[in-house]
């Protein structure tokens, strides 16, 4: 018989994987171009709403909607990047904050207008809402699948980074953007593709998040905070950092709410503050 | 004044297996103009960083006028008169030249902590700032924003900021770096015009400056001091030539000398 803490760690790790999917794109693009995109979670929200719409209005099966969530979020983000964002890569941090917050506000209004302000109900098939019992602990199937998807994606990202030429260009651009340009690497194009991929992953995360945390128009702001926490604690431009930070934060949050519910979300903020004071550049950060 | 005004003893620093400073011992008497030269990567700027406190040494001591300052923070060393300029301008882009130097003067006179009196009441500090700028030929442009000054003027502003702190020892990190030929005249006269009681150590690659102003030259290679001497001695030294031109050149010069 396993102790109940295993169940807590499992749930926490699943939540952490969700945060990882939402955050990894933001970490890499921030590390590469230092472009502060607070609208990142708006793209996540789009993924969530795509899944909702496809399932409830067109009767698509859940897993079929996931690639769509990814693609739609990626495409929408590329549109924004090509038309709007790229003009603001050199402006001050505060102006980038203002610009992307404006986009977030517009996205909240659009989501509320189209879908209303209540949380969206999601009808998953029965097998996804069931759980497996192993050695006395109940493991929800949905969370198992979530962890599986996240681990596969992590492996794919790491392999791509280390073994493809595109990955090499990404690593070079994150390490030293000016130098990479000087070597003839088309940083702008690399960034655009990375941006699309990161936003697509966020969209996927948004779709997967509906069942775990629910979806309403304010998702774009609520989860922005968690994404920023993961990115800053993990270190900019680091996949390993995002993974570690997301896992730590996910487990801390669930464990905190399980063992000391009076303190609630307290714990996640304490952990973040302590980690940042110890390592201001993040666990795997450079600067 | 007996004894050197600035001295280092056994200064050492490594980053992992990379040794950037190896047992460095230098002594600067008061009022001298010493030049610090050496190939790129020799550790010249690192030495400046160690002396000013931006880097903490692994070993060794730094003595200013006989006092051990190895443990002091950078701003405390500045207050004792140990000041540097930067190889790449480190200025205040949106402050005017006058505001920048006034700030430095106010920090020195400890007026910068007062928020209850307006700057207009500090005539003394403003006058002093203007005088420093005027002596460096920056008077006419003192109201221009730093970012709008020509590069040579910005280099002069670097020196002005350092002078505002009334240094006893001034460490100039490549003062002529990047200054176009037509603007270097002011720079040269500025360095010539530095008060005689200030001790100056300057890093330079420009041998014109070195031969014109230095009374003594220290040569650094690979993190340690290779040799020290008058400019003429250094110019003739085969070891120094080998360092700059390659071993073969040094050897053939030595043979020519003996042969």
């Amino acid at each position, binding site marked *: 018989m396993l102790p109940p803490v295993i169940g807590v760690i499992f749930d926490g790790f699943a939540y952490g994987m969700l945060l990882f999917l939402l955050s990894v794109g933001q970490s890499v693009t921030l590390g590469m171009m230092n472009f502060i995109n607070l609208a990142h979670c708006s793209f996540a929200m789009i993924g969530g709403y795509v899944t909702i719409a496809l399932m409830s209005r067109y009767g698509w099966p859940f897993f079929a909607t996931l690639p769509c969530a990814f693609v739609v979020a990626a495409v929408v983000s590329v549109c924004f990047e090509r038309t709007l964002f790229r003009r*603001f890569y050199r*402006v001050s*941090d505060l*102006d980038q*904050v*203002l*610009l992307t*917050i*404006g*986009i977030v*506000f*517009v996205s*909240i*209004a*659009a989501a*509320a207008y189209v879908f209303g302000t209540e949380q969206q109900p999601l009808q998953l098939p029965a097998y996804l809402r069931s759980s497996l019992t192993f050695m006395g602990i109940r493991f929800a199937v949905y969370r198992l699948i979530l962890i599986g998807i996240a681990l596969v994606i992590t492996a794919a990202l790491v392999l791509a980074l280390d073994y493809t030429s595109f990955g090499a260009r990404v690593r070079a651009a994150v390490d030293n953007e000016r130098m990479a340009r000087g070597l003839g690497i088309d940083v702008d194009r690399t960034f655009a593709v990375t941006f699309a991929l990161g936003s697509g992953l966020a969209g996927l995360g948004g779709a997967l998040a509906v069942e775990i945390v629910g979806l309403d128009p304010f998702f774009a702001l609520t989860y922005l*905070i968690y994404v*920023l*926490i993961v990115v*800053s604690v993990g270190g*900019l431009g680091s996949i390993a950092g995002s993974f570690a930070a997301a896992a730590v934060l996910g487990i801390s949050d669930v464990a905190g709410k399980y063992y000391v519910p*009076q*303190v*609630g*979300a307290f714990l996640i*903020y304490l952990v*973040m*503050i302590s980690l*940042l004071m110890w390592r201001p*550049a993040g666990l795997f950060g450079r*600067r | 004044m007996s004894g050197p005004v600035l001295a280092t003893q056994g200064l050492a620093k490594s980053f992992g297996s990379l040794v950037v400073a190896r047992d460095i011992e230098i002594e600067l008497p008061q009022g001298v103009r010493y030049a610090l030269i050496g190939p790129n990567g020799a550790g010249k700027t690192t030495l400046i960083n160690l002396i000013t406190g931006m880097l903490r040494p692994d070993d060794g001591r730094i003595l200013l006028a006989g006092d051990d300052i190895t443990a002091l923070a*950078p*701003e405390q060393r500045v*207050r004792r008169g140990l000041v*540097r300029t*930067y190889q790449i301008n*480190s*200025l*205040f882009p*949106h*402050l005017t030249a*006058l505001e920048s130097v006034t*700030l*430095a003067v*106010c*920090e*020195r006179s400890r007026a*910068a*902590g*007062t*928020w*209850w009196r*307006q*700057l*207009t009441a500090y005539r003394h500090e403003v*006058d002093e700032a*203007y*005088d420093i700028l*005027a002596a460096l030929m920056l008077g006419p442009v003192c*109201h221009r924003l730093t970012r709008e000054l020509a590069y040579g003027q910005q280099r002069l502003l670097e020196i002005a900021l350092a002078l505002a702190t009334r240094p006893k020892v001034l460490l100039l990190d490549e003062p002529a770096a990047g200054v176009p030929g037509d603007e270097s005249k002011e720079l040269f006269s500025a360095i010539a015009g530095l008060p005689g009681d200030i001790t100056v150590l300057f890093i330079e690659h420009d041998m014109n400056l070195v031969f014109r102003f230095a009374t003594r030259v220290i040569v650094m290679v690979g993190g340690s001091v290779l040799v020290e001497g008058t400019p003429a001695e250094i110019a003739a030294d085969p070891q120094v030539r080998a360092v700059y031109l390659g071993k073969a050149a040094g050897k053939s010069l030595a043979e020519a000398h003996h042969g």
Partner: protein
Amino acid sequence: MALSESLPAPHAYFRARTRWRPIEIAFWLACLLPYVFFPDYLSLASQIAITALFALSLDLILGYAGIVSLGHAAFFGIGAYTAGLLSKYGWGEPLTGLAAASLAAGIVGYATSFVICRFRHLALIMLTLGFGLLLEELANSAGWLTGGVDGLQGITTWKLLGLFPFDLYGYAAYSYALAVLFLLFLFARLIIHSPFGLALRGIRENLVRMPAIGAPSLAHMRSIYTIAAAIAGIAGALLAQTTETVSLESLGFNRSADVLIMLILGGTGRLYGGLVGAIVYMVARDRLSGENPQYWYFWIGILLVAVVTFLPNGILGGLTKLTVRWSRL
């Protein structure tokens, strides 16, 4: 170059910066307009004045010292709860309430400044955010003290100076808020034009260079952080006293984020940026939210994007650029 020839110039420069420009005088006179033209909106006007004061306090640390804080509402909330609790437990005198609030917020500001001021960039933003969220959770849990989600009840504010009661019409409230705003604005103006203000701008421009001119940057930053916290506390106390309620949102993330947006909107480091930003943002919110709060999000979002696109460095920054261009015609 003889000094006497150019004696007027350097001193005149600094004196010119401290002189009141006509547009400033026009601005403050315009603040009296609500009495005459918008008497039904005086309560909104006092809210704007309070928020403007809060934004001004953020500008002192963000616009002048470069300390980006996403948790500044913590001090606003501490001030609000201090004044509220003081009143709830029997002492409703407004001016001493302000003093108590500024003291409480200032002490907490001073204590946290030892941690906060050591960090920059993303770590600083996230630390301030974390502290703010932490305080919000604490206030939520300490329901016995703060009233939790329901907020503080039973606040009654005594007559201002013993003479002017706070009534539904809002004359006293607006006059009170406006007067406090103006006095603290003068105080901020004094700081900005002092050597300390110059040091703050030096810190914002190039923190690394400051030790090299002998500046105790950390001490400077701690001072302004404490002052800004105290002023934010006063703003919070004003809110508690004029609305006679205090709720969790006074120290919530939304308030921190809103004031940051207002300040960037108006333009940082210009003293008036926070004031202008507060006016524009809150008037827009009042006009546009109406029945459907979604509409407000949409329009304010468009406004923010438009300002960044056409008026960089905020509204005041863009206006400065325009006037410079016009004056060159």
